[in-house]
């Protein structure tokens, strides 16, 4: 057992804050970054356009 290893155990014992865990997960961020604009911009926008009555 060397001291370096003891030290690294100290570090891992400290709990990682929830927000940091989110920010450390690129694939979760990728999901958020696609879901938000897809729902709020594209889907909502397209639904409004589809809902425009067709001229007769």
């Amino acid at each position, binding site marked *: 057992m060397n001291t370096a290893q003891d030290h690294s155990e100290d570090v891992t014992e400290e709990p990682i804050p929830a*927000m*940091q865990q*989110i*920010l*450390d997960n*690129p*694939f979760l*961020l*990728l999901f*958020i*970054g*696609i879901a*938000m*604009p*897809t729902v*709020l*911009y*594209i889907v*909502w*926008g*397209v639904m*409004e*356009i589809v809902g*425009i009555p067709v001229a007769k």
Partner: protein
Amino acid sequence: MMAVNRLFRTCPSTGLVYHEAAEKLIRWNAVAGVVSLLVGGILALLVTLTRWPAVHLLPADWFYLVLTAHGLDMLVFWIIFFEIAVLYFAAAVLLKCRLATPRIAWVAFWLMILGAIINNVAVFRGDSSVMFTSYAPMGAHPAFYLGLILFAVGALVACFVFFGTLVIAKSERTYTGSVPLVTFGAVTAAIIAVFTIASGAIILIPTFLWSLGLVAHIDSLMYRTVWWAFGHSSQQINVAAHVSVWYAIAGVVFGAKPMSEKVSRTAFFLYICFLQLASAHHLLADPGLTSNWKIFNTSYAMYLAVLASMVHGLTVPGAIEVAQREKGYNRGLFEWLRKAPWSHPSFSAMFLSLIGFGFLGGISGVMMGTEQLNLIIHNTIYVPGHFHATVVIGTTLAFMGLTYFLIPTLFRREMMFPGMAKWQPYVFGLGMMSFSLFMMGAGTLGVPRRHWDMTFAGNALGYEFPGTAYLMMGIMGISGIAAIIGGIMYLLITVGSVFLGKKIATPDFKYVAAKDGVAPKPAPQPAFGASGHGASIGMAGFVAPGTFVLALVFLTSFILYYFVNWKYLSTVWPLS
């Protein structure tokens, strides 16, 4: 299975660790970007000389052709090639990791090259002068869309090579804890890129089929809505990328460390959540979409993204100020700024980029993004005035600053014409600032964008612009030429250095194979994030009082300009 390339070299002057395959890909992508910039720059000269009323160089059909090619070569090909280089750099080099699947990365690169060439050929054939936005039902040659689609697929694949590299770095433990802030910014850019490119595919593939006659009809409002998810979001890739470059340059030049990792990362997170929604500001004048949709996406969501930009605009100079004060430049409010290395082109490019992006691009962007105020400037030359401040002063100039850092470490060449390099950011940056400003001025008087002839000679419904509008378009032309000279200086320096510059000889230079699964130990730490906070710097309890004052100046200009425009709106249609 193919053997994995685990050859690395350590740069003797910066300590950066380069994976052999990554290094090559970064170089080639950067060079492809610069070649696009060269083509786009020649076209910029022609467009500018046509919009300068006293010169009015090209005939109408050539003007629209050249304008289309200028927009695409600059905003798509130059910027995205360079961004892929930045992504690979932020993943492989900053994490000291091997690049995931170099072969696939090369496929991506050649797809992008092929797409860029096909698209350019389509435009220069003359039957695809549909401009950057290629709004349906205006149709281009099928090759126009095909080229863009191939390029987009290549760029998407490159983004996944980036994500794959992150996975490898994590599993091979080339870093511990969180990725560095610059890499985190690149993650933000890559995420936005995935959404951007997917939206581009959703709209360009049907449009391609329509151009072949396989799809009967493309609804124009649907096109515009989905196209802008691509067109606007791609600008947000740029913002995330150039902000990362600001942090990187602040780290390299000053050893500056972000004032708060937490705050900076949260700001990037706001980008991920909200930046792309602001795409709706391009549809503010379109009937058919409700004000609910417009105002939610532009005002509420966009302001959160703008807030994030202001955070970055504050923490980057703040970090520089702290680093400078710790070095002893602690007197008064601005000694740190006066004593900054103004003749170091990486720094001056980065700082002009930050100021120009914030004051010119940022303030005008928020004004235009307000539904009511948008009417004042919609489709006027104010719009290109705004986005040349963001994508040229903001993104392009930041990338130029990064290039000066990359020439010795990535290309291992000495920089040619160092005297010219000192001046280049000023000629380009100040020229562009004046260019943007006068475009905005002329736009406020109603001069249209994308218009061959502002005199409307021979038109049934003419309009007589005041003399000031012509004067401003003239000054715009002269400033544009100055900026183009700055661009030529950049090209001379980079192309000269990379191809003809003196090789930097490193005595015992070699690529070494890393032990299985582990990247080699870097020699000295690179400049990214050195320095701890010293004891007593700053004034009146602020560690970065100068930056605080700059922020107040910014906010005051912002508020004044915003309200002046509301006042102006009230005079547009007199109600008497």
